């Protein structure tokens, strides 16, 4: 193989590797985006008592489509993360919080 042909082959191979890497990255990014759920930050009053805080955690963990629940006592927030593709209406979230004995003041939705 002459030097020019070798150069062309190297360029072609490099291009192919670059293109396939780029395609894989795009594919991984899109599937990651598709796999991500939704995060809801619920503002709830009176979370200082663990009987209450645990009650809210328990109610959400028993709700279909909920991946995790964290309680941020300092800021009075309940952070609910959902499984892939699962979303909740505000009224549903309110009902779950009410069932746990509390009132939901507000909700912020974050889609990843």
């Amino acid at each position, binding site marked *: 193989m002459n030097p020019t042909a070798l150069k062309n082959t190297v360029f072609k191979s490099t291009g192919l590797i670059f293109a396939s890497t780029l395609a894989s990255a795009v594919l991984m990014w899109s599937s990651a985006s598709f796999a991500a759920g939704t995060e809801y930050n619920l503002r709830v009053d009176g979370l*200082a*008592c*663990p*009987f209450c805080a*645990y*009650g809210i955690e*328990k109610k959400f*963990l028993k709700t279909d489509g909920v991946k995790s629940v964290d309680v941020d*006592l*300092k800021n*009075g927030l309940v952070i609910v993360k959902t499984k892939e593709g699962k979303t909740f209406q505000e009224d549903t979230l309110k009902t779950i919080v009410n069932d746990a*004995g509390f009132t939901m003041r507000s909700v912020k939705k974050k889609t990843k």
Partner: protein
Amino acid sequence: MKFLNRLLVTLISIVALLIVTVYIFWMPSPQEPAYTLVKTWGSKGSAPGQFNEPTGITLSDTELFVSDARNTRIQVFDLNGNFKRLFGKKGDAPGQFNRPMNVVIAGNELYVADYFNDRIQVYGLDGSFKRNIGKSGSGDGEFNAPSGVAVASNGDLFVADFYNQRAQQLHTDGTFVRQWGETGQVGILDGKFNYPTDVALSKEGTLFIADGYNDRIVSFGPNGKPSAKWGGPFAMNIFGPFNGWFATVTNVSVGPSGHVFVADFYNDRIQKFTQGGKFLNSFGIENTGPTHTAIAAVEADDGSVFVADYANHQIQKWQPGK
């Protein structure tokens, strides 16, 4: 003019009488010397001897058992705070639990209110699993977040059934005997509860129910009939920081002295009463953070009181004043 003066004097007298009445009846003074904090141990973490939200505490003759709720385990110490052992595993299989809350020892067995799994779990004091009692639901013998348990001398269980707004009495095998409160109905009048958090029994069989958000203790005689209630004026959900008042009751226990100890969570203190509800003493560590300290207490034979300190992830040991 004379009439108006008389009216004014009468009104002032009535107001003064009211203030004196409130002060005498609803703001009692301590009846004994102050308790002294002699020791604390523990910090936030998951290593042996550390805690992540301790929520319940009880004693055998020589050991202290603490439910370490978010670490999902029971930790055992000697009465000087030296770590001895731990047990428990997160899950819902027999022997596993999730968020252990108030605990009690009876007949060399440890009873754990398994809050997330809606059952009472029973262990040997060495941590060996014995049996569980109850399941999820609102029927007889079923629970919705059991939060506290007491055991009678005949083995009957009394369970604070938090979200079902009741306390149940069950036989050892879990069969239903009776209940106090209306299932799922919150109320402040007699016969109803507002998220009961714990129960305790005296040697004579009097049942004490910590009526959590009603800010009161309600007691029932061995015949099941009401015997006393206390916590602020008229024990009707009037909360406050004064002696004998509560702000969310999370635990009740009857000590070897026969006195009743109540965890007054939002006031960061333990209050001590006679079984009739007469205020005797209070003690605790104030907290400035978003949550609170004194969540449960137990009295030892020598009069020392051990307190599960939720906010500081530690145990407090108090001794009575002399």
